[in-house]
């Protein structure tokens, strides 16, 4: 009876377990193995070279630029889109009317195709015919060539990144807000929290903690993952000013066909993402759940 049950359990888990092994675990392990080899497409057999790929990365100025660019991008996009998402969620929650319409407007970028939207951004930011610079000209400022000057390209991409994820964060925060019992905010008012800021400090922000942690981690991961706007709009240029981690990985792997080196970059990316998730589940989760 016991053994029959155990067998049935294994049989039932088998399809999911197989799918996990074949589609997730095996490719990941293969990529990890490749990261320690000099595999290049068409050159067989690959050689085990230990940490050479990582040593090369350390001295590779191109990789270092791409790493720093990614950090800068994340440092702009994550905080602004988290704070902005929270601000929008609070504003919309407090609005007397039009909640649905505002929610839809800000969520639109999330459901639209980035590649298609990139074309729109290219037009908006175009140095001569773009509306952004037209507005700037109207007030007497000569706008820069947003996407083709190395001073502004990362900022412009970050702005697009914020536009993309602010609505996503807003929706997550709104879900978190609706889970806070209205009675608590009312109790806070009766207890003497007269200013909206006091009620936010006393009730909303602490109870939003789990949501906020989730949104922060998701935003960090989403911004570390930046790729499609770079690939479509700038291709890492000009002069590597917008090279980011995943774009470097892509060019190394698919343009220069150095799959081993590309896999090593992937591994760095994987470690960053796993580290962020670990932070969420292990350290911070304990501090924001009240039980």
């Amino acid at each position, binding site marked *: 009876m016991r053994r029959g049950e155990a067998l049935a359990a294994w049989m039932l888990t088998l399809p999911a377990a197989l799918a996990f092994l074949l589609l997730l675990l095996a490719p990941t392990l293969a990529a990890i193995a490749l990261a320690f080899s000099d595999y290049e497409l068409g050159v067989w057999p690959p050689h085990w070279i230990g940490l050479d790929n990582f040593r090369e990365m350390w001295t590779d100025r191109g990789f270092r630029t791409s790493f720093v660019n990614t950090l800068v991008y994340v440092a702009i996009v994550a905080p602004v889109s988290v704070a902005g998402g929270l601000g929008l969620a609070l504003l919309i929650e407090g609005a007397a009317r039009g909640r649905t319409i505002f929610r839809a407007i800000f969520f639109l970028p999330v459901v639209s195709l980035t590649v298609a939207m990139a074309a729109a951004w290219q037009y908006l930011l175009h140095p001569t015919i773009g509306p952004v610079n037209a507005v700037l000209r109207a007030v007497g400022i000569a706008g820069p060539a947003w996407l083709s000057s190395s001073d502004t390209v990362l900022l412009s991409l970050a702005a697009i990144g914020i536009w993309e994820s602010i609505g996503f964060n807003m929706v997550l925060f709104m879900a978190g807000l609706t889970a806070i*019992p209205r*009675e*608590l905010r*009312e*109790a*806070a*008012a*009766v*207890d*003497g*929290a*007269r*200013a909206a800021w*006091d009620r936010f*400090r*006393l*009730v909303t922000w*602490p*109870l939003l*903690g789990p949501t906020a942690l989730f949104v922060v981690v998701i935003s960090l991961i989403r911004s570390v993952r930046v790729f499609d706007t770079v690939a479509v709009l700038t291709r890492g240029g000009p002069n590597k000013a917008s090279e980011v981690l995943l774009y470097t990985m892509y060019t190394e792997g698919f343009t220069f066909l150095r799959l081993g080196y590309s896999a090593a970059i992937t591994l760095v990316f994987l470690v960053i993402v796993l580290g962020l998730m670990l932070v969420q589940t292990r350290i911070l989760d304990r501090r924001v759940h*009240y*039980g």
Partner: protein
Amino acid sequence: MSGLVIDSVRKAFGATQVLHGVSLSVRPGEFVALLGPSGCGKSTLMRIIAGIDAPDAGRVIINDRDVTRAHPGARDVAMVFQNYALYPHLTVRQNIAVPLVMRRLSAWQRLPFLGGFAGAARRAIAADVERIAEPLGLAPLLDRRPAQLSGGQRQRVALARAVVRAPHVFLLDEPLSNLDAALRVTTRREIVDIHRRVGAASLYVTHDQSEALTMADRVAVMLGGRLLQCAAPADVYDRPANLDVARFIGSPAINLLPAEARDDGWVQLAGRATGLATAARGPLTLGVRPEAWRIGAGGWPARVEHTEFLGDGLLVHARLDDHAVLLRAEPDARIAVGDVLPIGFDPARALVFGADGARVAAVEPAHA
């Protein structure tokens, strides 16, 4: 008058009128129970008094100050919510301290890093919290979070948080509804004790009439958004203002029988004299509480249909002509289903309601 005064408060949600002009006053030190069935607008009235909702019309006056438009935090009211509304992320100590922190510390002193500058004020708050927690038995629980407490303990934390700053008006919205029966009875005492200690004007919402009748100095009976009567518990029970109050108060419920007053004022029930006279004439309703019936020779014949043993009494369901009547007999009465009992009532304990439902006084036959 200091205390709480509510003057013709009206409130509608959309097309539904929830409060139809409610007026009520509570003196300092007085404990008034607001009693009414579910959905009659009790919580709505409480929220208007606390300032969480605004009335459509009417005024709320607290300690001689019109606070109808004032912020909840500026009204000197404290409220115990139906589900306690404790802050889940704060310890019991911090929960109880919130009303003091919000009132005694400035916005600067409340900032986490600058809080050290308010040392003396914070020590005073800590002392006040412990002083209020001690008699409620919360002292050993002060460093727990609400999730680590039982329902009864949470309830006492909510009480402590409400009274810690000695409010002028103390509102309680069905604070016992989430407790089990035994705990309810002991907590009743605790609430009345706290009320006496604080001396606030207390308004206690309940739909449980035994709570209202046992705890309150006065009971305000509310039905369908109207206040029908506000009087001492004995008055509400013995002299209900109208049929609705009589029907609502008392368990088991009062017997209401159609009767008629003759032109000379004598009341007749089913064609027989009752020994009761009234100033009203024509058809009326006679109210007899189950314990006001007497079983004995010379009464009306009532056929017993069902009996319930209550321990301290026997509840008899009987039929008098076409009317079902409930009567309460001694627990050792030998009454069996099918018996025909001669029943009557003491005219002094019977209630007479006119055709409009209002109670009319019985009068001496000579003056009828």
